[in-house]
């Protein structure tokens, strides 16, 4: 596109260092193939989180922070599973169903709250996530209530069944990489650029013809759809879903991943998911200590590295440059 040469590299890792992150990524991605099943399990969860946090990132990059992202993961999971359960639909149709419903709900919710000050968005999305959990608990007849739904069949795509961890990891990795590439591409299109503009200076953007409300609504719908897709896949990997799988603390972890990873970088969701998904393992059951660590890490990152870990390379570069 003609406008491309105008775009500065504010989002890339820098001229020379552009190759290094990809090499690192390839190494990290390949590593599970040479490790035990538990590492593969963590890698799958990480990949799904990359997809979901990318969705959260899209919403955040239009200038709003969703505190109810887990609710949309839940919608994708439950709708797709229930479609298969009640109507016997295959993975493709169920996935579409899950994603579409997530998008529609996001559209309705967003249409109401995006016209108001940003604080309402925070309060309502938070309340919505809690409401979703309560609804899932309450409609026990349909959703299985607190017991959830178990024995979810693995993905059967035109005869190829993803019933082993290795196979699912490949699928999850492809999806994660696809979401990353989607983000790269999307933010080079005029709509993506417009969303960045809206986030950076909404009044200015609005005055040049970029409708803030519409763009934020679109971002919310797309972001929640990605979350829904993540839910669809997660349900068929773990084989079991319950209202507790999608509670508020999940929304909080997703935000933590995005903030710690970096809100201003394409690599943010990736870094956040890769670092924070396996972290519970380090703490080996000392859950409280782990959460205290999360809380402290969040505050420290916000204070000293507000653009997240992904901004570390450019920060260090600036430091060394000013020393010279």
């Amino acid at each position, binding site marked *: 596109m003609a406008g491309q040469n105008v775009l500065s590299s504010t989002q890339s890792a820098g001229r020379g260092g552009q190759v290094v992150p990809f090499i690192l990524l390839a190494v990290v991605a390949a590593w599970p193939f040479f490790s035990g099943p538990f590492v593969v399990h963590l890698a799958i969860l990480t990949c799904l989180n990359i997809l979901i946090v990318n969705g959260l990132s899209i919403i955040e990059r239009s200038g709003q*922070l969703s505190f109810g992202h887990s609710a949309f993961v839940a919608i994708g999971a439950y709708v797709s599973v229930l479609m298969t359960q009640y109507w016997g639909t295959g993975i493709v149709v169920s996935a579409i169903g899950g994603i579409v419903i997530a998008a529609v709900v996001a559209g309705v919710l967003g249409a109401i709250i995006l016209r108001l000050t940003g604080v309402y968005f925070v309060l309502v999305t*938070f309340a919505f996530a809690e409401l979703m959990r309560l609804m899932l608990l*309450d409609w026990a007849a349909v959703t299985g209530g607190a017991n959830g739904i178990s024995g979810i069949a693995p993905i059967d795509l035109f005869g190829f069944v993803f019933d082993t961890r290795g196979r699912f990891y490949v699928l999850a990795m492809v999806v994660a990489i696809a979401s990353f590439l989607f983000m790269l591409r999307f933010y080079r299109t005029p709509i993506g650029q417009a969303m960045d503009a809206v986030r950076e200076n909404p009044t200015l953007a609005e005055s040049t013809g970029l409708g803030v409300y519409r763009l934020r609504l679109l971002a919310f719908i797309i972001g929640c759809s990605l979350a829904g897709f993540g839910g669809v896949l997660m349900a068929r990997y773990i084989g079991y879903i319950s209202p507790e799988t999608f509670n*508020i603390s999940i929304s909080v972890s997703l935000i933590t991943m995005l903030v710690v990873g970096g809100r201003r970088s394409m690599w943010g969701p990736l870094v956040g998911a890769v670092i924070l998904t396996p972290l519970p393992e380090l703490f080996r059951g000392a*859950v409280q200590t782990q959460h205290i660590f999360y809380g402290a890490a969040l*505050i420290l990152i916000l*204070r000293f590295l507000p653009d997240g870990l992904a901004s570390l390379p450019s920060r260090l570069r600036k430091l060394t440059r000013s020393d010279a």
Partner: protein
Amino acid sequence: MDYGILIAQATINGLIVGLLYLLMAIGFTLVFGVMRMVNFAHGEFYMLGAMAVYVFTVHMELPFLVAVCLSFVVAIVFGSLVEWVVFKPFRHDELNGMIATIGLAMILQNLALIIFGPDPLSVPPVAQGVTQISGVYIPNSRIFVVFFAVLVLALLYFYLKKTRSGRALRAVVEDFKIASIQGISSKVYYPLGFGVGVGLAAIAGALMAPLFSVSPFVGAAPLLKAFMVVILGGLGSIPGAAVAGLALGLIESYASLFLSASTADMLIFLVVMIMLVLMPRGILGKGEV
């Protein structure tokens, strides 16, 4: 079935719960009004109040009223300190400050879990027995709680209306821009606003402690309720928070007569959304949009 008694009972219960929602919501509105920040740790200060009362009454065997006052003092001091130490860098960076309160909430809840464990603990009741007023039964402990809550509210009203610092605090909440033009010092009012705000949450938790059991998890539901009340009452409106708090308590109480608890919650969420569409400035029309 005497529906009159049922409704009266539900009204009393609703008002009692509403009083506590009111305390939570006013505290939350104070913090938001002064710091322009959604305080996700507000529920954990409620929990702090409850746990503090537990420690003071069960472990230190202090009388309930003393325990409540001490809890308030602890919360106000701790809150101001936390604001000054942790949130000062975020004073003009509300979005990041808000996320930081999530970190604080995580830390507070898990510290409490480490100290007290996850199981519910009970605080001895304030009073025994039941009073009957024309067919309606009210446990005496609840009467005490209502009495204390009303006392706290009266003191709060006096503070906000009559004292200089209270009036300034109110001015900051109700019109942030004008107050800052008049040079209200952020050095004083940020920690004060946060301290008083979370102090009110702690009092709510302290007063509720003998009525329900306490645990590190008790903060989550009041936080959500505070959100709903603030939306219904209008962001930044203290009177709105008061009216909406009572209203929410009543709605919940009546709804639970006919619906299951989670259906009632769904209904309330729906009411909140409808209010946002029809009256975004809140019940009293004094909130910001």
